[in-house]
């Protein structure tokens, strides 16, 4: 049975070194919760994209990680938040290839495809929080809400 030990965490995101910690934490937590190799790889990649956005666009922030359960399904919820400039046009930001500068513009839209549930909340001048959930086994019925 998976336990929440080593899964619950709040990690700072303030440098590219922190991105390495985020990837390692997510990899280990997902493995602990019974994620298969491909699902682990997808979730770690999504986390890497979102954490880099927190760092580069949000000016730094944190990632909160927690185990979630729904019925018999076990999942991992990751929330990336910052107190940065926020995103004025969410739809545009999610569009493949859109970048406000410097990137490939694949991070936000790509991360959304790599996880089972995705929510983006942002207020201009206040900050941004992106929350994702992936399930260790087949995702339960409600895919878009949590």
């Amino acid at each position, binding site marked *: 049975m998976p336990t929440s030990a080593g899964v619950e965490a709040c990690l700072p995101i303030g440098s590219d070194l922190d*991105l390495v910690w985020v990837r390692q934490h997510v*990899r280990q937590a997902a493995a602990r919760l019974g994620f298969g190799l491909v699902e682990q*790889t*997808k979730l770690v990649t999504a986390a*890497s994209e979102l954490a880099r956005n927190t760092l580069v666009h949000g000016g730094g922030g944190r990632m909160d990680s927690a185990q979630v359960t729904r019925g018999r399904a076990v999942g991992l919820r990751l929330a990336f938040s910052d107190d940065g400039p926020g995103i004025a046009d969410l739809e545009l930001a999610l569009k493949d290839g859109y970048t406000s500068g410097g*990137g490939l513009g694949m991070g936000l839209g790509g991360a959304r*495809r790599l996880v089972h549930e995705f929510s983006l909340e942002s207020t201009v001048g206040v900050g941004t929080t992106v929350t994702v959930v992936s399930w260790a086994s087949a995702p339960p019925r409600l895919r878009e809400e949590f």
Partner: protein
Amino acid sequence: MSDSYGRPVSVPGASAHVPVLRLGDVLLVTLQGDLYDSVAQQLQEDIGATIATSGVTGVVIDISGMEVVDSYLGRVLAEIAAQSSLLAARTVVAGMRPAVAITLVELGLTLPGLRTALNAEAAMDLLARTGSGSRFRRSSAEHP
């Protein structure tokens, strides 16, 4: 050494240095573990400088040791290939793990300009076979 959160400054499993080996006309670059963004950036500059000074005609980047390739590293690989090409060298990315390939497709990063091979040996063969081994030999073969 530790940072303000009491964690060691170097993360176990993270690479602060990338081995670059010259094998004849080819540079063999082996990526392993996890890469800091700044290390990937530095690597791109180092490879450009090495091609320019050594005149190698091929670059093999072995990523069989990489568990994750995100859009940042994907872009660095694509830029290394583009930059090498301007310096008359060809790049082959070797040994991508199947889980990484599946993830890159879903991420939307198919890296169309990138030549790939299943492993470093196949990449070396590919470069040798397609004439990257020597610009001069190839041009003399074209004009016998």
